[in-house]
């Protein structure tokens, strides 16, 4: 589904990613771990199409086609979803209005009919249930004044609503209490299917107990320095990254 080939990315001429290769097929869950500042969020943002990063070399292919020139909204309509490490607050824009606009844009992209307000609300309530969110969050401004955990739940709620084919979750498990972590895992597992793929960026083994990855990578200093099965995550939990960074 997604192929990342020799990806080099700079921010303001400062190289961050220095040749990343990754291949993920439909139905799979891959986890990316790695020390702070190693470039995990950079990779996630570049996949979603953030214009502030320059791809200086390499390519990103979705279903065999390069998406480097594709706008963020077109990527979303093609089924890419990014759960932000730091969800953005948007004062004055109601969550429900924003999500209805987004969902209908994505549905149009998939060739589906748009939903009217009533159908949207019914669907939204159903998805809120999956992540254990109060319907009152629909009428609040997008992420404004949400607690850290509420913001993360809101990201998973949006994912549940938009039903992406490829979901990239950037530290969605950070800062969550046990219940919220379960709710997030629940949201992911509810969506898992043979035609969807997930990239989980995380610092902790915990989430991977609920959502078992097919593959684990370690990103350090802009490169993937190690890959393995789920046992790699357990090893990292015990030993940290020092031994890998020294090797890299």
């Amino acid at each position: 589904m997604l192929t990342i080939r020799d990806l080099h990315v700079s921010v303001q001429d400062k190289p961050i990613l220095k040749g990343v290769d990754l291949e993920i097929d439909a139905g799979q869950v891959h986890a990316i771990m790695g020390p702070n500042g190693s470039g995990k969020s950079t990779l996630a943002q570049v996949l979603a199409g953030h214009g502030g990063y320059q791809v200086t070399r390499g390519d990103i292919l979705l279903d065999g086609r390069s998406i480097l020139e594709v706008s963020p909204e077109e990527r979303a309509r093609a089924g890419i979803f990014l759960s932000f490490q730091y969800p953005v607050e948007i004062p004055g824009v109601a969550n429900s209005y924003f999500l209805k606009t987004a969902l209908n844009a994505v549905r149009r992209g998939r060739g589906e009919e748009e939903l009217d307000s009533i159908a949207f609300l019914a669907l939204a309530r159903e998805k809120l249930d999956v992540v254990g969110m109060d319907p009152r969050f629909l009428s609040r401004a997008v992420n404004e004044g949400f607690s850290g955990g509420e913001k993360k739940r809101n990201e998973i709620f949006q994912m549940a609503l938009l039903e992406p084919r490829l979901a990239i979750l950037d530290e969605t498990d950070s800062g969550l209490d046990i219940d919220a972590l379960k709710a997030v895992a629940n949201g992911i597992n509810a969506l898992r299917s043979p035609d969807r793929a997930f990239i989980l960026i995380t610092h902790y083994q915990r989430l991977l107990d609920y959502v078992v990855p097919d593959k684990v990578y370690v990103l350090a200093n802009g490169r993937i320095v190690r890959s393995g099965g789920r046992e790699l995550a357990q090893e990292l939990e015990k030993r940290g990254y020092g031994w890998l960074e020294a090797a890299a």
Partner: protein
Amino acid sequence: MNVRSNSRVLEGRTYGAGVLTARAPVAAQALPEWLGALKSSALGTFEAAGFPSPRDEAWRFTDISDIVSGPFVPQEVARSPVSSGALAAARRLLAERLQDLDETARLVFVDGAFQAALSRFSPKRDDVVACSIDQALSRHPQRVRAALGSDPHDGFQALNTVLFQSGAFVHLAGPRPAEGAGRPVIHLVHVATERAVPLAFHPRTLVVADPGTSSLVIETYLGADGARYLVNGLSQVTVGAGAHVAHVVLQEESRAGYHLQALEIRLDAGARFSSHSVALGGHRSRLDIAATLEQDGAEVALQGVYVARGRRQMDHHTVVTHVGRHTSSRQVYRGVLDDRATAVFDGMIHVAPGAQKTDARQSVRNLLLSGDAVVHAQPRLEINADDVQCAHGATIGQLDPEALFYLQSRGVGQEEARRLLVQGFAGESIQTLPHPPLRRLVEHRIRSLLEAHEGETS
């Protein structure tokens, strides 16, 4: 003020010249003697003060040369009745722009003249008087006289006093509305149609709220596409002890229309007043608000939202004077500027000696969507008491690129995402609008304004 430049204006074949001929219609109207005297005295004031000059601090950024030298002719309701064509145009505009806002009364003025046929009062209730000033002059002359007050000192306001021929008189009689009747909503609608000669209108609005009453007064100004005219309005609101008046100006003048309006508020003890200015149209528009909190415990809240595109200029000037003790004022203005538009905000908070426990706040935020748009924001404080709390802030910003990316990453197209963010920015101010049907109307008008492609150059 410069008298010489002023007399030059008055000598030319100008709007000023039209003003001089104003004595004739004033004399021709069958006015009560006291009103004739007030108008004569105002004419004297205008001749002495003249139009504001660019050297006037308060008019530094408002270029009125088009108005002073412009071709606007004072409208004379009596001599040129509104044609059936103009009425039909007004009807169309009303149908297109204003749905039913669930008003207690709606008074419609077309090209300055009151139109009973377009107005409505439902249901009849005896705690509300809403009629044209002419009607009020014959029914309650003393109330009108008190509400008009004395001769204003500013040139444009004096001109309004000289030349106003009609307007609205609203009296909220207290203390309690009849059982089951909610807060009355009075809607005053002024429509300008396209005329062969550019007209100048001087609508006067008088609102008198008796002690203990609560009401909403909306003034809407609409202009037909292509209409070129000047509105020089003066609205005076008297809020009795413990009464609450919410006042809205919805300004949707035509692209070539000029809108000048002064809003004067007098507040008794414990009275509350809130003003909402929604400026969306006009070539040049300016609202001057002066609120004096003379009695203890009075409160004002002034808020505004303006969306300026093309080459429009929109001004808001506020002077809030705290005199009584324990008075408070809140000002929140949000502006969106695109293309080559200009906005001016000049807000003066004046705390008089002895106005202890004053609490005054002011915040102005402008969103610039184009590098060619210009904002002049001048918050000013003048504090002559020691036990007060005053805060003000003015910011100018652009759309947040991270917020834009967030919306786009959810599939929302770039144009739509920008519009959502702009609406969200303005929305913080729209949310404070009273009366849900009005709020929906304003949301809708702002959305269609943002969606419209501005092909204009003027």
